């Protein structure tokens, strides 16, 4: 068990009448690449929000590398190494792509942000451009958010999350809102960069082709419960999943 990097123990959460999480118990091993599937409101996003500290569960515990992070704030959890990207990219509209990257770098430098050290110093810019090149969006460095395509915005959002050398990366629908032909290239790119850094990945996804292609295991959510936790083929073949989750039952 000690190899597990992220563990949730019988986590429950209700918003008034809606049960968002019911006895959710999961143990994610180090370096795993799992996907989370389920209809809207099944509890996927609540799970991500609880792990990243934005929502506090009613009961149960969340452990990261053995220590309890249930009641920590998003900032504390981020600093521990659990990072997330957003379904709707959360970027700074008035800043350029490069500046957005520099913000992330300034915060995640080894030493805390300084009062005099120039944010746009040559070394910082070089590192930022390096990451942008890695994500192949370096050519858009001086453009503002309004001038970018959905794909580039997604990649920037993920790039900013990655810049802090995360241990666990939660991707909230990394390919939603992106043109079909761009989906696979983006996922390849993201997986390539993350696997190079041996990062545990949990990503929320609706597109089953992406689920089967990139995830080692799949967590299927329905009505706040995990109804299946297995390899992609087994889960998709599972009769309960077909009726309640993918709606593909005959």
């Amino acid at each position, binding site marked *: 068990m000690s190899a597990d990097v992220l563990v949730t123990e019988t986590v429950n959460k209700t918003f008034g009448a809606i049960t968002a999480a019911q006895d959710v118990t999961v143990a994610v091993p180090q370096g795993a690449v799992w996907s989370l599937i389920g209809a809207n409101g099944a509890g996927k996003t609540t799970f991500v929000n609880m792990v990243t500290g934005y929502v506090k569960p009613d009961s149960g515990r969340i452990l990261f590398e053995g220590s309890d992070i249930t009641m920590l704030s998003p900032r504390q959890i981020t600093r521990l190494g659990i990072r997330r990207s957003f379904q709707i990219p959360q970027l700074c509209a008035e800043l350029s792509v490069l500046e957005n990257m520099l913000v992330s770098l300034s915060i995640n430098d080894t030493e805390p942000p300084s009062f005099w050290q*120039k944010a*746009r*110093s*040559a070394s910082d*810019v070089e590192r930022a451009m390096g990451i942008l090149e890695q994500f192949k969006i370096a050519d858009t460095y001086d453009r503002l958010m309004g001038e970018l395509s959905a794909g580039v915005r997604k990649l920037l959002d993920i790039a900013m999350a990655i810049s802090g050398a995360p241990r666990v990366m939660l991707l909230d629908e990394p390919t939603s809102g992106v043109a079909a032909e761009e989906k696979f290239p983006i996922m390849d790119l993201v997986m390539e960069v993350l696997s190079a850094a041996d990062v545990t990945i949990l990503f929320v996804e609706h597109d089953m082709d992406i689920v089967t292609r990139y995830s080692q295991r799949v967590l299927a959510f329905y009505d706040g419960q995990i109804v299946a936790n297995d390899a992609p083929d087994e889960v998709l073949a599972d009769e309960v999943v077909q009726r309640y989750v993918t709606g593909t039952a005959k």
Partner: protein
Amino acid sequence: MSKNPWRRFAGKAGSGLIAAAAMLGIAGIGASKAEDTFKIGVVTFLSGGAAESFGVPAWNGGKLLIDMLNKGGVLPAPYDKKGFGGMMIDAIPVDEAGGATKQVQEFRNLVQREKVDTVLGYVSSGDCLAIPPVADELKAFTILYDCGTPRVFEEGSYEYVFRTAAHAAMDNISLAKYMKSRGIKVETFAGINQDYAWGQDSWADFVASMSNLSPDAKAGTALFPKIFAGQYGTEISALIRERADVVHSSLWGGDLQAFVLQAGPRGLFERSQVAFAAGDHVIPQLGNKMPDGTIIGARGMNGLAAKAHATELTNILWEAYEKEYGTFPVQAPFRMWQGILGLKSAVEKAMEANGGKKPSDEELAAAMKGLEWEAPSGKIQMVLGDGHQAIQPNAIGTTKWDTATNKMTLIDIEYYAAECVNPPNGIKAVDWIKAGFPGAKCD
């Protein structure tokens, strides 16, 4: 990639230069000091709560007198000479609104930029405490024509600053003397005064005078609403509940009007004998709304009290004011007149000494020190504060609505000589009162 440092430096220097150009541009606008005109900066309330009862009537009276002086030969000797010693008088009005800090800045502008020969002004006690140190710093001859707090020359001494109006102590002493001489029952008295130098000093002087003249009178509630509060419902309830024999107040301007309008209908004036240390200036506006039998001071022999003892000078100015503005002059124009006539006397005295040239600030200060001159409100003598603070006779009366002429009149007016109600030089007013008015010369 980073912006070329030289270009950013250019931007910074560029903005510095624009700021510099702006400043140089302003510098050119200042005025120059002309020889044949005597320029006065007149600072009084042209807006805000005190404008209509003090500021504007004073400026109207001042304008009128200056026009008459510039024509020459309109006023009786010794004021028949044209302007100030032949020089035309040019007056610039400045609004006193905005608080003491703003007034200090305006004072600097008048002295340094507009290059006025004298600044004559200031109704609010706050301004009268703030301006003198700056006047001495800039060595600018300044006349305080209206404010009443005794602190100016009792807690400080200034070389270039003079006050041509007596301070507030005399009004409260006269009120206490008036009540004693008219035999008004005063076992308990309460007070409502604005919460700043003027109100606090007036109440302190009145309490001290009463404890001296009517020792058995007991001081009750003392209310200190904020200046320009305008709403006195709760305070009036407190005074009615107190049922004091006498209610003393040094309220003035819009605040006094609001207080009378709100207290009248609630019968405060019937239940207690109300005494206003400086109440005469609201008589024209309130008319019959000012209840009868209210004891009124006018901070000197001003307004109706002066008309009853009018000299030729008083009548000329009174009729000219009534003709021009349709209402009779109250204390504010009277104090402006005594300030301007005092300035005229000082200028002409200094010109005699220096052979007819326009006197410098130092010459004006020397001439003004210890000066005496006649004014519509009686003889003004610069006695206190080593010749920097004036004393003047005082008068207290009681209101009576004259149904025949449909005008408010003052009856039972008692006059007090200047030395009777003002302390001699060198002793603080409160100490003089506590010591039982030693050396008071009352006829």
